């Protein structure tokens, strides 16, 4: 089996938001929506910090779809639009999506966004990779693990763009892959592990 995954090394991430922007550009994510956000651990605001002045600490924590093996969104999707594919990615069939937003309510990671309106792009052009399908009004969308790139054997955009090399991509089912090794050796953990969703995205540090 294949279980494509990303490990994010939080010791390296500096909160530069390059991955947020690059994801948006790669995947033609409409204005106002983000598939990939950079949060700070234990904070509910952008660029937050823990502790009180001057004893503060700040751990930047990028978060997008966790590609759960036991995906809450998939379980509640009434049409089968959300599915897990043969590479372990959780994907959406936009044709089947009826816009009920059950998945958004179910996702513990707040990873999904919704096209309430006809998607807006101020440049007037689709700015994403030509291979990425354009989503219409009324469908949910989220990180696809860069399906179009990973289908082609390329790494996801947020991985190749990261100036701090904080993200490592690979197959968790291959024990010799770099991502498996890192997760093993550096005790990678899953976000909200006790939710039982079993994400493929792991965090290190």
């Amino acid at each position, binding site marked *: 089996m294949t279980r494509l995954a990303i490990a994010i090394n939080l010791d390296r991430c500096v909160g530069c*938001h390059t991955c947020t922007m690059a994801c948006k*550009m790669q995947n033609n994510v409409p204005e106002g929506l983000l598939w990939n956000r950079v949060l700070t651990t234990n904070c509910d605001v952008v660029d937050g910090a823990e502790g009180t002045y001057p004893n503060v600490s700040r751990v930047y924590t990028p978060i997008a779809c966790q590609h759960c093996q036991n995906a809450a969104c998939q379980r509640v999707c009434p049409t089968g639009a959300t599915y897990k594919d043969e590479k372990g990615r959780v994907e959406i069939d936009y044709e089947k999506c009826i816009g009920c937003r059950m998945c958004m309510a179910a996702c513990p990671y707040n990873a999904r966004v919704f096209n309430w309106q006809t998607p807006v792009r101020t440049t007037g052009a689709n700015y994403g990779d030509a291979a990425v399908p354009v989503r219409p009004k009324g469908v949910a969308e989220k990180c696809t693990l860069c399906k179009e790139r990973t289908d082609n054997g390329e790494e996801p955009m947020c991985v190749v*763009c990261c*100036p701090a090399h904080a993200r490592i991509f690979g197959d968790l089912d291959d024990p010799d892959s770099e991502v498996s090794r890192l997760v093993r050796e550096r005790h990678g953990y899953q976000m909200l592990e006790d939710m039982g969703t079993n994400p493929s995205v792991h965090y290190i540090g």
Partner: protein
Amino acid sequence: MKTAPDKTVLQSCGFNCGSRCQLRLHAEDGQVAWVESDTGPDAPDAPQMRACLCGRAWGHWVNSPHRLDYPLKRVGPRGSGQFQRISWDEALDEIAAQIKRITADFGPEAIFFPYASGILASGQSPLERAIDCYGGHLRLHSDYSSAQLQAGTMALFGDDGYYSGSPLEEAANSDVLVLFGSSMFATRQGGAAGGHYLNQLREQAAAEGRPFKVVSIDPRHTPEVRGAQDQWIPLRPGTDAAFVAAVIHELLIDGLADEELLRSHCVGFFEDTLPPGTPPHSSYSDYVLGRGPDGTEKTCAWAAAITGCPAATIRQFARTLAQAKSAFITQGWGPQRSEYGEQTSRAICLLAVASGHFGRPGTNSGVHEPMRPYTPSLPGGRENPVRAALPAFLWTECLQGGGITQAQGLRGAQQLPFPIKMIVNHGGNCLTNQHAAINATHDLLADESRCEFIVVCDVMLNDSARYGDIVLPELALGERENAVLSGFGDRVSCLRHGESWSHFTGERRDPWSIGRALAERLGVLEAFEEGAGDGDETLAARMASEGQVFAASSADSAGHTGEDDNGKAAASAGRADEDARRLPAPGHEMRALRAPLPCAYGAFRANPTAHPLPTPSGKIEVYSEALARMAQTAQLPDGQVISPIPAYLPAAEGPGSPTAERFPLQLITYHGYQSIHSNFSHLAIVESVMPHALQVNPVDGAANALVEGQPVVVENDRGALVARVHLTPCIMPGVVALPNGAWHNADMAGSRLDWGGCANTLTSLRPSPIARGNGQNSCLVRLRPLTAEEQAAGRERGYDC
């Protein structure tokens, strides 16, 4: 589904950024659809030049609604932004006529090119070249980046500090990295820049079980402070010299200073090394030990009251330095961007010397890491015959006072007897946005009896461009064929041959052809083209001159290192690799690791007689006779002084100054991830990913009854702006911070309230005493809620408040 992209075009993110990363553009139907960056080989010691979030948004930038498409002529009052489209011929004829008239009536010194770096990646402005060929223009000296540091290190070490520091690679031999107002991650954002390298240094040290501690001395907590071993020491802005004085005091009384070095290599640290004829008790040691004219001992308690940093923390930092094997002490350019930035920058450098962390492996001289190859000018043309040079920041003072003298910082001439009569602003935003005191500056610019004619040539209608009488639309670097030298702040150096691509460009022209058309009208075409030709010839000439810089600054295959000539060899260090002499074809680039640079002043430290510094004494001038003389003659703003030693001097707008009673908060700006100077700041897509916000400590938030995300007015006597509050413990109480570069956006005929949140609405025109540099970080403000009237006005503008 969309159609497949027509073509992938190699280009550069060509701003005045230390990186100039690679972009690969996918043009579709004449539009940039998709922007990708470096996908070439990636190695730990030669990382890809990955673009940051700004470079990724380049497609939005190049298609921005603020792009200039046609030549414009002003039809409303100056600065009103009311323009009418005209033809290129009309525009160029008018500019040429004005150049001729003003040169004839006032002389070439009346024509001024304000500091502008938008054109930097293409070398010198061709407009400037054309005017140099005609009659010349007023020069400028220093810049807006590091004027005070340049003057400070010039006094101390005899060089301007741009090229003399140790490269960050030297920190591989350090156990402590001390950052004074420096964030590698935010300042240079590309993948080959220092931030990624700092991560590697940390990991390397951890893997080898070596200690590596980062101490960040900064009013803001920055991402460089990470692990338990790291330390954040917040100081009130502008008080670094007081902090340093107390640390040196501590080292001296404990016998932990490098007294031998301070005696053998320095002038005026101790009384017995003062130059002959100097008044007694003017040495730095007497200053800190309380034997100087002020009679105050610079104890930790003294510094604590000024800096806001507890005495125990200062003492403990002195221990950290004393116990360090090799501390790499560096500074960003924020601390020196203050009224007494010369004191700040030299004090930080002096700390490196006094602690002995200087001139030996693992150390630095206290300056910013050195720049690497820079874009050279094209050969030929004519040298500007004018000798007079204005400090970059002082053009408003010159406009205001109707002239300027040597005692005010003019160089190369005794005085200028008239104000600037013509401004040519090519690729810059320093008329308003990136200058200071925008409201006062607006009034000076709007008065047509002072400056009679303003030409702007730019890619965007930014706030400065609104002041043009004629505005010329330029093709952006990345939309034309070009030669770009990239990575001047990075570990790899690259020479890239960017390709042109077909898309809508209106009547935008490339800068060379604009300069050429002007030269033609000025009757100096032959001189203009000399050595550089036109079209392909010009590009070939540029490629050849950049190729030389590239080859000279790259490590050759044998890994030769640069000469150790007190670090000054930086720009020309290394021997050319034969391979590097080949020039890249369109759509191609060449990369090389840069030639290793030596540790700052290693040769001087080892043998000061054989390798003297370029100071008058050949030594480190802790006491500078040149500054002592300048103190006698300089004409300074009220209450300002020049000190020959790096003493702490309180700014007119600083903690404890009388103004602080009304405006109790210090405002600073920093290099945010969301812009490169003012580039990218105006894009909605950037704002949606990384919003601009005013950082406020929760203590000040509570005092002003502020909540997260609330819009607030930040004001002082110079103006008012609106910003959204971000409450964070990552900023010192008493200090508020804005990312630099936000676009000024105000009704200048009405309220002048700046809805864009441009910090320079509030900053001061008061120059620093030695460099006459921009001291924007010496700025006091207060916060207040928006009035009901302002809220209504804001809503009308679409501002959510």
